[in-house]
């Protein structure tokens, strides 16, 4: 079942319009949720600000460099929030048996399932993240060239695949276990640790956060390409590939679970 990307984009547009129409009937909920989202981002910002009132730098990272990392992590965590939020409902559909309806469409199951929900409140985080990056970028005096901005976009998009992959895999555990909410919640908390430079950890945890729970690729490795252009480690250059690989693996895992799904019989 191979269709062109254009076909899928058209379908996505149609589903998106329907979803936004239904969301707009709960306008106050949308506004309050967006404000809530921005509040969490501001709180993260304020924590950094308070910390750096007392310390000049952390492990060789200045205030604005840390802010850059924070902004980078916010932007690269936006796609998982906006586009893949339906993963949170997966266990409910699977448990109730409603998941079977997705299996009967002549389009890619994973695509159809994820396209059903677009979480608009993530856009507040995107705006705040971009603002933080621009502010830090200006304060650090980094050059603004077409190449830099292109690099930034490519690395941001591929970095966003990491959290998407982690969440897909965590959500897909519901095909096997009952209490999968806690797995998803645990993995979702990983994202809060993406904003710290990986060098603060001991070698053991550096290894864990790089290869086993690859949160270092959400912000640290990719942003080194922009922040420290003189000493870019190999892992930074590899981060787009790693993002793609993890995404592909999680997709296969998710689909494997879905294919095993046999419904509830009702």
């Amino acid at each position, binding site marked *: 079942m191979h269709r062109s990307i254009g076909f899928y984009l058209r379908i996505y547009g149609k589903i998106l319009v329907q979803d936004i129409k239904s969301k707009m009937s*709960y306008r*106050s*909920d949308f506004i*309050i*949720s*967006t*404000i*809530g*989202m921005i*509040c*969490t981002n501001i*709180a993260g910002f*304020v*924590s950094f600000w*308070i*910390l750096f*009132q*007392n*310390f*000049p*730098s*952390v*492990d060789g990272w200045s205030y604005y460099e840390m802010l850059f990392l924070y902004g980078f992590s916010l932007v690269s965590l936006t796609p998982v929030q906006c586009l893949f939020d339906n993963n949170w409902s997966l266990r409910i559909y699977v448990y109730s048996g409603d998941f079977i309806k997705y299996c009967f469409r002549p389009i890619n199951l994973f695509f159809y399932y994820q396209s059903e929900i677009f979480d608009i*409140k993530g856009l507040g985080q995107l705006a705040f993240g971009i603002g933080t990056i621009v502010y830090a970028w200006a304060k650090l005096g980094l050059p603004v060239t077409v190449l830099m901005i292109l690099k930034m976009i490519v690395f941001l998009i591929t970095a966003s695949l990491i959290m998407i992959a982690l969440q897909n895999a965590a959500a897909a555990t519901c095909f096997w*276990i009952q*209490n999968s*909410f*806690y*797995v998803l*919640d*645990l993995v979702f*908390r*990983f994202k809060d*640790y993406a904003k*710290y430079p990986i060098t*603060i*950890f*001991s070698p053991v*945890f550096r290894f864990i956060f790089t290869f086993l729970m690859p949160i270092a690729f959400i912000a640290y490795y990719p942003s080194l390409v922009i922040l420290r252009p003189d000493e870019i480690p190999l892992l930074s250059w590899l981060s787009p590939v790693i993002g793609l690989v993890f995404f592909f693996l999680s997709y296969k895992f998710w689909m494997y679970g879905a294919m095993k799904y046999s419904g509830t019989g009702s």
Partner: protein
Amino acid sequence: MNLKKYLTLTRAGIIESLQFRLSAFIMVIGNMLYLIVVYFLWKAIYASVGNEPINGMSFYDTLIYLVLATALSGFMEMYTVWEMGRNIQSGKIVLDLLRPMEYRKYLFWSYSGSFVTQFFFTFLPTFIVVAVLTHGAIPLGINLLYFVISVVMAVSINYSIDFIVGTICIYTESIWGINIMKQVVVMLLSGATVPLAFFPETLRKVVSCLPFQSIYNAPLTLLLNGDPDPAYVLQTLGIQLLWVVVMLLAGKLFWRVSLRRITVNGG
């Protein structure tokens, strides 16, 4: 006896929360990860200033403070806002209102069983591990008594805030947004994410006039001070008591006013 009906709810809560062992296990892993991150982050921070104490807090003090703040927050998170929001939206609240017990009390006591399990399975182990790992940096004296008294009042203030925020759901019908805002404000302004000792002077003055610092900062500073000045202890506990009363009354009043506006669709 009057107390008996409350304790029945506590017992039911204990039995209920013991059912979810896998979730408890995963939560412990999640907390461990958080503590590892906190440990390395603050180690790096203190290394950058040559491991000198900052604003009277040494590395161990900060670590104990933040670790126990996490343990306390696991202890105090009652999901009241979610529970109230969902009950209001689904209409189940009507059944709860019919019970021969004030809704505010019913909600609290039906959750209280988790206090017992959380205390023995999360807080106590964390406390012992921290006390051992920091080689007795937690003073064990009269301060423990002050800490316990302070925590009891903190639980009450925290519940009152939750109840007030939950009542707002009657008006907004938005649970996620309201709850996340509450969580962010409480965690930041109570000193649970960054100890209040690190706040800049003016901000600390503002925050000390708000109820939030009575939830985490008050009990934890009382715990860390092995030789407390009686005037300071009295002042801290006095302010807490004041907030207990104020927030309790505010919550009750707000609930009574809001209840008239409640609309339940179907049932």
